[in-house]
């Protein structure tokens, strides 16, 4: 078995997500690399939800359209996904609810209701029973699953074990998964990777108003707040979130906030304030399809230009869009460092696929990164919060400091932070603030900000950003194409981008939006794209789907 995909589906609110994670761990601990795509509707109960768990010998970051096994907790799962099943493959189903005609050839039925009743277990443990059957179907050792269940279920571990054992005993081997010798890597969501990166670079305070797809960051950080000495705050609105963050920033506390497009709309006055007052803030912007409420639990890449242009006035900003868990970790840490070094807002453009997708995470491969300290006031001359300097960065000091008056201001201000409308002061401050982005752009030329994968000699390049990195990389390799992925999007890494495209005659841009936002951005820098593959239904590209679409543009 080189590549295995399992789909588990059922009604929302019935533990599908948890089962997906158990299956992921089962395969992960068998030495395979794992990726999990989670698809769920915007409701608490009812509706259809499913996860696709893909396992492979080498690392993977995208799902396949076709699957080898379907675990159907209800009829709907089978009706909706039956066509995904590869020829000669199997489904495991609840035999009390479903009576598929072809169950003899490709089905494995379990009397879930009966088992649950006999074990006095709760309805939600149908999942556990199913996962137990899966372990047998894959030819895995029950002890492996038992270990995972014990860890995952602190409450009712014994009952879960019993129910899983029943499922295991009722099943038969369908597809043999040979355990591999490679060491398992942690399996984390993009949201968790972002949170860990921020912690690594000195996060002190996280403030957020719940909104899909970034709420899991709030939950995760609230959960680990004590052990990492974090302040985690959920205030009255995203307006308060942004403004509170600036208050913490004024006090020298490294602060991040998380939201999606709608919440970011409310944060833009705070963003612009961060620009003029030079108060660092890191904003995680998890994209999902709009306009407006749109498709709340699905994914998009529609806020690139919103992030580039949000907030009144002109000010420096840093925007990065990581493509996997390692990049999410490294660049979140980097965003915090850059935001404080240059006293500018840093925006991490994530999306639902990036944030809620589950990836293997190799900390050692993420890149060395340490918390950096900003430029501090040396205490020698009278303190000026907005002292004009060569690179535009004024030394910082935070209250309380005896002998220093620290004034920040949303109005245009002089070096001391006192309001001004003078021509000379206005020009001087505007230039000082914009100068910082020029120095930042220079610094970024020394760090890898554009990735090149696939066949580096190919004259055709797939261009992508953010969460499409994984799927483009896989298809690029399969079709012998070059793959170019700018990670930093502002200040735009012009030199590295140009180098990446050297020798390329045809550019195919792959984006999860309807207008081609990266296409437009690079056009402004003098690059023309030949073909666009755009997807705006909120779902991620599967490998099969993208391969077919790319092939249509190849000679």
């Amino acid at each position: 078995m080189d590549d295995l995909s399992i789909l588990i589906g059922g009604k929302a609110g019935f533990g599908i997500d948890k089962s997906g994670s158990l299956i992921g761990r089962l395969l992960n601990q068998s030495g395979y690399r794992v990726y999990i795509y989670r698809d769920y509707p915007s409701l608490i109960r009812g509706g259809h939800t499913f996860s696709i768990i893909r396992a492979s010998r080498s690392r993977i970051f995208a799902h396949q359209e076709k699957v080898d096994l379907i675990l159907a907790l209800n009829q709907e799962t089978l009706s909706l996904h039956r066509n995904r099943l590869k020829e000669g493959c199997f489904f495991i189903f609840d035999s009390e609810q479903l009576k598929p005609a072809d169950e003899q050839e490709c089905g494995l039925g379990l009397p879930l209701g009966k088992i649950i009743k006999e074990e006095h277990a709760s309805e939600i443990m149908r999942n556990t029973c199913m996962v137990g059957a899966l372990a047998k179907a894959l030819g895995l050792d029950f002890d492996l699953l038992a270990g995972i269940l014990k860890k995952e279920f602190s409450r009712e571990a014994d009952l879960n074990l019993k129910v899983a054992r029943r499922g295991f005993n009722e099943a038969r081997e369908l597809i043999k998964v040979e355990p591999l010798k490679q060491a398992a890597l942690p399996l984390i969501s993009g949201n968790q990777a972002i949170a860990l990166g921020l912690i690594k670079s000195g996060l002190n305070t996280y403030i957020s108003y719940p909104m899909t797809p970034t709420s899991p960051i709030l939950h995760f950080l609230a959960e680990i707040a004590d052990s990492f000495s974090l302040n985690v705050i959920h205030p009255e609105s995203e307006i308060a979130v942004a403004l509170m963050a600036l208050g913490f920033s004024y006090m020298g506390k490294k602060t991040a906030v998380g939201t999606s497009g709608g919440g970011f709309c409310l944060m833009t006055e705070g963003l612009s304030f961060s620009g003029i007052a030079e108060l660092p803030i890191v904003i995680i912007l998890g994209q999902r399809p709009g306009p407006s409420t749109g498709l709340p639990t699905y994914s998009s890449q529609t806020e690139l230009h919103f992030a580039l242009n949000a907030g009144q006035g002109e000010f420096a900003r840093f925007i990065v869009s990581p493509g996997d868990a390692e990049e999410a970790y490294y660049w979140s840490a980097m965003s915090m460092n850059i935001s404080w070094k240059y006293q500018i807002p840093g925006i991490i453009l994530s999306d639902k696929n990036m944030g809620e997708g589950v990836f293997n995470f190799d900390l050692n491969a993420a890149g060395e990164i340490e918390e950096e300290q900003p430029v501090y006031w040396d205490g020698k001359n009278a303190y000026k919060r907005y002292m004009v300097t060569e690179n535009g960065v004024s030394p910082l000091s935070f209250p309380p400091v005896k002998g220093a008056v620290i004034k920040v201001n949303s109005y245009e201000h002089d070096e001391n932070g006192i309001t001004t409308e003078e021509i000379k002061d206005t020009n001087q401050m505007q230039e000082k603030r914009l100068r910082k982005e020029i120095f930042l752009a220079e610094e970024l030329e020394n760090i890898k900000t554009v990735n090149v994968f696939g066949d580096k000699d190919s004259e055709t390049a797939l261009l992508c950003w953010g969460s499409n990195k994984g799927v483009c990389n896989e298809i690029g390799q399969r079709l012998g194409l070059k793959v170019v992925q700018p990670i930093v999007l502002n200040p735009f890494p012009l030199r590295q981008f140009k180098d990446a495209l050297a020798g390329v005659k045809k550019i195919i841009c792959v984006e999860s939006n309807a207008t081609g936002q990266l296409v437009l951005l690079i056009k402004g820098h003098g690059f023309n794209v030949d073909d666009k593959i755009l997807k705006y239904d909120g779902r991620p590209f599967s490998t099969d789907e993208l391969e077919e679409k790319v092939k249509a543009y190849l000679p």
Partner: protein
Amino acid sequence: MDKIDLGSYAQNTWCPGCGNFAILNAIKYVLAELHSEGLPLENVVLVSGIGCHAKIVDYINLNSFYSLHGRSLPPAEAIKLANPALKVICFAGDGDAYGEGIEHLIFAAKRNIDITMIIHNNRVYGLTTGQYTPTSPLGFRGKSTPAGTQESPINPLDLMLSSGATYLARGTSHGIELLKKIFKEAILHKGFSLVDVLQVCVTYFNMYEYYDKHVYELSGHDAGDYHQASGKIREWDYNQEAPIALGVFYKKELPGFEERFPVGVAQEPLSLDLKIKELIKDFI
């Protein structure tokens, strides 16, 4: 008391006769007095919104955070949480705090966070040249309501009482001695304190005569009694003609948000790395 100059070099641009001068002078006096009693001035952070009131932070040479319209409280709360030892004093206008920023006001009161909020309540928008505010009387003729407003004002002290504020007082810009007394008490109060100052805008809504005729100072009032406080607060609804009480309506000691909130401590880099590694091991 030490003679200490808290003024800055910023040029004062309030209209002559503006009620804001009384607030500026009273707060400078109180801060100087608190300083002479041992409060380090660097431990004070002034926060303002946007409007005529907000210029006050330019005029005082102390730490300040000149925020956005309606948004003095979120940064003020953050500053207090980041360092509960600081004295955080917010200044806001009535359009600012009772209008655009009212959600923050209700939540700050609900949290009973130890911040002092001073409202420059002139019941008109000054800096945008004369429109009605949430506390303008019914029928107020402003530039946006030339035929008069069709909505009644809110009673901000009533709202604050029911939201959980633990110190509520009112003064006027014609009574600086009372302002000094209340400001000092409000700053020393542990918990969320709000002082509604009937501050007169001489240019757009000159109420000096009206207030002089109607105000009286509370006496024999038990500020610890919620029902008495509520009764006195409701005596005047900011609309109908009625006696206008000045002084402290309500005062209660209750735990503040900052006391209940755990404040993060900086991590050693090594232990941080180890902790991250330990944590992700759980995700295998």
